[in-house]
């Protein structure tokens, strides 16, 4: 076992100690699994995956693509919980939609930051108004607008209703972002992981690193959403106590 392997194992135990001392129940297990897979994915990004034709810049692929996947998943869940809220008017669904939107905006921001960092060495430009990049920026603006709308409205029911409508309408951009590389001629490459005829011809090492990152980011996402939903409930409790003065 080399120095790097030892560093990854030590990293896991340090983060696991933080989780064990702070989290309980399902949250604890999701976080521990997330940290373990994240450590393995980081190891595989740098020591298992080949760098293919783009040199070391290729490694940005393993954080850029999973971030995009999480942003899409998060906004899909915002769409689902928003529809549920509009039908059944349960504030718990609104709380879940809000948690998914907040975490989705975080990962969508990471897509928009890592994309230019990858684009500069590979394309020679930080940014271009290409269809995929532009629709992704619009997607980010829609969900930042969703969070801003929520922060401006003080009435709980009105906030939930308006946000749910935006959560449903805003999701229309997700399929446009996904299909943009097929509908328009873009600088951004087309699908490289899943093609219409089946799996792509990526080398095995790249599949290992990519799918490890996908699983790690998904676990981290669900952990964040659960924590954020719990935080929302606590915030509601604190707000009601402030209104009643603790009574």
């Amino acid at each position, binding site marked *: 076992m080399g120095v790097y392997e030892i560093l990854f194992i030590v990293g896991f135990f340090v983060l696991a100690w933080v989780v064990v001392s702070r989290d309980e129940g399902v949250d604890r297990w999701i976080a521990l699994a997330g940290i373990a897979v994240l450590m393995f994915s980081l190891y595989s990004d740098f020591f298992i995956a080949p760098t293919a034709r783009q040199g*070391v810049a290729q490694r940005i692929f393993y954080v850029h693509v999973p971030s995009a996947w999480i942003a899409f998943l998060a906004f899909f869940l915002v769409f689902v919980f928003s529809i549920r809220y509009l039908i059944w008017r349960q504030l718990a669904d609104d709380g879940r939609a809000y948690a998914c939107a907040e975490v989705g905006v*975080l990962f969508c921001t990471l897509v928009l930051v890592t994309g230019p960092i990858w684009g500069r060495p590979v394309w020679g430009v930080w940014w271009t108004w290409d269809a995929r990049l532009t629709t992704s920026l619009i997607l980010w603006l829609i969900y930042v607008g969703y969070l801003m709308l929520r922060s401006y409205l003080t009435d709980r029911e009105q906030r939930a209703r308006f946000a749910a409508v935006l959560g449903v309408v805003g999701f229309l951009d997700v399929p446009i972002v996904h299909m943009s590389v097929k509908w328009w001629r873009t600088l951004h490459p087309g699908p490289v992981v899943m093609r219409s005829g089946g799996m792509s011809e990526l080398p095995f090492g790249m599949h290992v690193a990519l799918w490890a990152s996908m699983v790690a980011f998904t676990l981290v996402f669900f952990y964040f959403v659960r924590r954020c939903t719990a935080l929302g409930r606590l915030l509601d409790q604190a707000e009601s106590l402030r209104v009643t003065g603790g009574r």
Partner: protein
Amino acid sequence: MGYVAAAYVIVLGSIGLYWWRLYSRTDRLKAEVLRHTADDAAGIREQ
């Protein structure tokens, strides 16, 4: 390699900061709820 390091630092740093923010906000709100609950209990005792 600088671009790769920047991307990983930003991604992992953002995840770590968001995690820390969730913990710190939860702690602050829990303390606030406990304080209000304690004030409430003290008020009931005074009555």
